[in-house]
């Protein structure tokens, strides 16, 4: 019982803090829209001649949503490093609660923030001529929860290794951007070089992008064309992400237990 309560307490703090951060609320919309406008408009015509089988904007849209989920989840969990720098982490660490509640509470906080915020991107659907219904939204939301939980768990592992925010820039360049670009959000991985396909398989975002694309485009794309640009069935993606998330949560609990 106290186990659940500790998780809820830690979760709630993350959500309250996010709600107060107006600048962050707004800036997290900016990037996906920028990607859609710039890449979408720039590449739409050149690519329409190629054998993509679907409109490029439609192709890219689910990937952008998945990227947005990842970006917010990542950023929210990495805030643990700020907690450390500003001293608040000590307050959490001396509390008589299992380290697992800290990890799970933080991951669920980031999951909530990322999933709810990414839902807002669905208001762009009509502009991209993707029609959505409540059931699709529900499926998407479930998947956003899973993806953001997996990413949050991963960032908590990173946050436990990273002692200061100094290395944040390097982390973005060497880790997060490659994950974005090797996820299949911008181009189909099926036709990519073999090495790239291999790397993308260890990238959790790949499974997110692939599933969201299937969920969003299933009812308005020719099944054969959709099959051309998808990697694997959704249930396999769910399975891969669930395993990834479990491993990451486990590692971060161990990392939080470790003391100097």
């Amino acid at each position, binding site marked *: 019982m106290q186990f659940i*309560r500790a998780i809820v307490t*830690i979760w709630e*703090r993350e959500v309250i803090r996010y709600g107060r951060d107006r600048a962050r609320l707004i800036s997290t919309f900016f990037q996906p829209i920028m990607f859609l406008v710039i890449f979408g408009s720039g590449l739409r015509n050149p690519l329409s001649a190629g054998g993509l089988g679907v409109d490029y904007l439609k192709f890219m849209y689910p990937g952008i949503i998945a990227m947005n989920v990842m970006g917010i989840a990542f950023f929210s969990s990495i805030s643990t490093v700020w907690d450390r720098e*500003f001293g*608040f982490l000590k307050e959490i660490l*001396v*509390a*008589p609660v299992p380290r697992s509640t800290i990890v799970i509470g933080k991951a669920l906080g980031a999951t909530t923030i990322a999933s709810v915020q990414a839902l807002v991107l669905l208001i762009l659907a009509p502009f991209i001529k993707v029609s959505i219904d409540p059931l699709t939204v529900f499926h998407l939301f479930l998947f956003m929860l899973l993806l953001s939980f997996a990413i949050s768990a991963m960032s908590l592992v990173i946050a436990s290794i990273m002692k200061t925010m100094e290395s944040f820039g390097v982390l973005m360049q060497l880790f997060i951007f490659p994950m974005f670009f090797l996820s299949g959000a911008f181009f189909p991985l099926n036709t990519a070089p073999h090495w790239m396909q291999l790397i993308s398989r260890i990238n959790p975002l790949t499974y997110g992008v692939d599933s969201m694309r299937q969920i969003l485009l299933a009812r308005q794309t020719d099944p054969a064309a959709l099959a051309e640009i998808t990697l694997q069935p959704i249930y396999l993606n769910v399975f891969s992400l669930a395993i990834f998330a479990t491993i990451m949560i486990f590692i971060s609990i161990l990392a939080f237990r470790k003391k100097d």
Partner: protein
Amino acid sequence: MSIIEVKKLTKNFKDFRAVKGITFSVEEGEIFGFLGPNGAGKSTTINILSTLITASGGSAKINGFDVAMETDEVRKSIGLVFQDPSLDDRLTAWENLIFHARLYGLSKKEYLPRVKAVLELVDLTAKKDSLVKSFSGGMKRRLEIARGLTHYPRVLFLDEPTLGLDPQTRFNIWNYILKLRQENKMTIFMTTHYMQEAEYCDRIAIIDKGKIIVIDSPANLKKQFGKETIEDVFLKLTGRKIREEEASTKEQFRNQLMAHRRR
């Protein structure tokens, strides 16, 4: 049984030994002062006793529980005010206290009156719904003390609770501390660099370079060393030289950088 029992405690940071086998005990209800120059190992000792870091050798018990093995029981027994700020400044004073109370397993029925009482104690009731970001240094310090008390710990650790505070606030904080001891039989383990404050303690330990030099009551110490004030005793025992920190300069630089960024 003493409420705090420390035996031959040591702590190494890589090849630097910050705490060199200290032994002491604190009785229930005591105000125990831990005095020493910068870098003496005071905060390191508190970090070990509060389960934040592990000792390299020796043992320590709080309230009968081993700090290395029975961490949960130890954590329930203690309250802390760290040397460095540890509030969430994006939350209000009230939210900081509620967060704390819940993590310590208090039910709403238990914590509501307590949170109100501790806010009253530190005169922050009127400010309870303001973001901590908008607080002055003294208000933050008072809030941290209130927070450390919310779960009625058996032992309260105060690491320089009056650092950077004006005389009025310092006087007030001492009033709270003395009141706490009187009303709740709470044990207080504190560090300070204000030697006048050491006079309030029942006993003080003077620690330098990781070793305890003396432990006794302020009156006895003054008598033993033939001095008028604790400050004179302190200077006699620890010398007048500024501490050349033995830790690597790189580490020092990093600490300064962190402290600077925190502002």
